[in-house]
């Protein structure tokens, strides 16, 4: 089986020119509009404050990092955010898998239509959808009204909204359709005849799933997991809307320092910490789930 490593891009490779053509545009865009700003952010994190010319010289200081490390609340929040992100990614990926499976193997001709159906709600403003959801979950909301009316409860449930649980549920709800996409892309490369071959060898449907489909779809699943996990660590909109007092996440802290406090140095320092922590977690994660092993057959 040919693997991706079979053709090194050395001078003998006839694809050399294509390689440069493929590499240049992304490299330029990333260098100019990503690396440069991130470097700028790191530089700002060493500023004592925002006074003076932003691009001018200043005396670097570790003051912001000292403050960030000294505040126990920040570390706690980072830890909780990372754990929440892990949970959300795991749950969303698991719940998205059957959807992707359905679209890939069961939906047949209508698959495109169903995919559209799945994604169109995301072209409605997220903010308004969550507001509508709050109408459902709130104390005076639809769910409570129905439960009260049917006599199942005597007092409205106030635990449906404005807490960490609500944040997790909302985040999972939002991410499921997105997580389905890479899984779907991964499932798409599985030849259906493999299932038939397995059946010919008397594998039960569940065995087909476990032994054929799941392993082959793993790259898509891993892609989905990281696609959900990484941004969720820094998530701030959902905790803001449904988290209440106790559901705040690390992203809210950074957001606050940029938009409520105009304290960019401290915000940048906290961002650098979060970036490093997330990168670290991803590296560790990739060691455990070695993608290269997944690709070898």
């Amino acid at each position, binding site marked *: 089986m040919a693997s991706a490593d079979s*053709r090194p891009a050395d001078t003998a490779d006839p694809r050399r020119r294509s390689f440069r053509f493929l590499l240049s*545009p992304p490299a330029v*865009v990333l260098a100019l509009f990503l690396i440069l700003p991130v470097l700028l*952010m790191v530089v700002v994190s060493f500023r004592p404050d925002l006074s003076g010319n932003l691009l001018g010289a200043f005396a670097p200081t570790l003051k912001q990092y000292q403050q960030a490390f000294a505040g126990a609340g920040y570390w706690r929040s980072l830890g909780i955010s990372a754990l929440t992100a892990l949970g959300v990614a795991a749950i969303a990926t698991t719940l998205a898998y059957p959807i992707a499976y359905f679209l890939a193997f069961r939906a047949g001709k209508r698959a495109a*239509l169903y995919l*559209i159906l799945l994604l169109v*709600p995301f072209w409605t403003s997220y903010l308004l*959808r969550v507001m509508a959801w709050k109408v459902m979950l709130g104390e005076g909301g639809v769910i409570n009204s129905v439960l009260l009316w049917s006599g199942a409860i005597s007092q409205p449930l106030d635990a449906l909204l404005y807490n960490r649980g609500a944040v997790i549920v909302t985040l999972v709800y939002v991410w499921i359709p997105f997580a389905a996409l890479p899984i779907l892309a991964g499932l798409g490369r599985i030849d259906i005849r493999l299932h038939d071959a397995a059946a010919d060898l008397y594998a039960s449907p569940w065995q087909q799933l476990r032994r054929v489909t799941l392993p082959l779809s793993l790259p898509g699943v891993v892609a989905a997991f990281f696609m959900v996990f990484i941004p969720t660590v820094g998530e701030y909109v959902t905790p803001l809307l449904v988290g209440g007092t106790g559901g705040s996440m690390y992203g809210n802290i950074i*957001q606050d320092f940029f938009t409520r406090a105009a304290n960019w140095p401290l915000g940048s320092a906290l961002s650098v910490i979060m970036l490093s922590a997330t990168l670290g977690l991803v590296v560790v994660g990739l060691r455990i789930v070695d993608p290269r092993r997944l690709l070898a057959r």
Partner: protein
Amino acid sequence: MVDVRVIQPLATPLPAARPGRLRLPALRGYFWLMIALLYLPIAILFVFSVNANTTLAFPLKGWTLDWYAKLFATPQLLDAVRRSVIVAISSSIVATALGTMVAILLSRFNFRGRDALTGLAMLPLIVPYVVLAVALLILFHALGIPLSIATVAIAHVVVALPYTTLIVLARLIGFDQQLEEVAMDLGASYPATLRLVVLPIAAPAIVSAAITAFTVSFDEFALALFLAGGDQTFPVYLYGQLRYATTLPVLIATAVLLMAATLVLLVVAERVRRR
């Protein structure tokens, strides 16, 4: 080719008939349950968009189409929606193109900077949008680039790149390179191979990626706020108007209308295609 190790010797005796594929009616039901959950808030929004209430609270107070009428009479709102569409389309096209390039590089080539490129392509996922927004703002001012929807589109390309890369990569990884090798052995140049073999293989994922990039851009707020100059996109306009409780119903009507229009458009396109 099937790896024979996949099937273990069975502990239980062979079934009488050859087993079929995994058929779970529950699977279909699960999908529709998900759809129902997704559309429930939208149904609620729709109800409030034709309701005389100006707050999102029950009890309902009489039906009205006033909000929709007011929507079309608000030029800032219409302009904002139009700008959002333009930004989303342009940034998704560029992001998908770049993401496909990166995916091809990562799955088909072996080179020294490979891990670095992977990390870089994924980096926007970790950088908080507001930080990127501020940094890009300083950058654009320093470079003398005026703020407009173009600067917003650039930022959206950067943040959509991880999604497009991941989706196309998930399709291309491990996809047998034999076809490409065969094509080149038959004399096709690599660019032709890319065009005629790799891209068609990746096409489903490319479309998925484009849709994802569009979605990411259309509802994005933090970058659009800082980098749009005077050209508000719809989310920016929305967030701003929400400070004042009086304008909520018109915004809801807009969101519902947008969604309905998109749905109708795409379903019609799908029907036309299938005829």
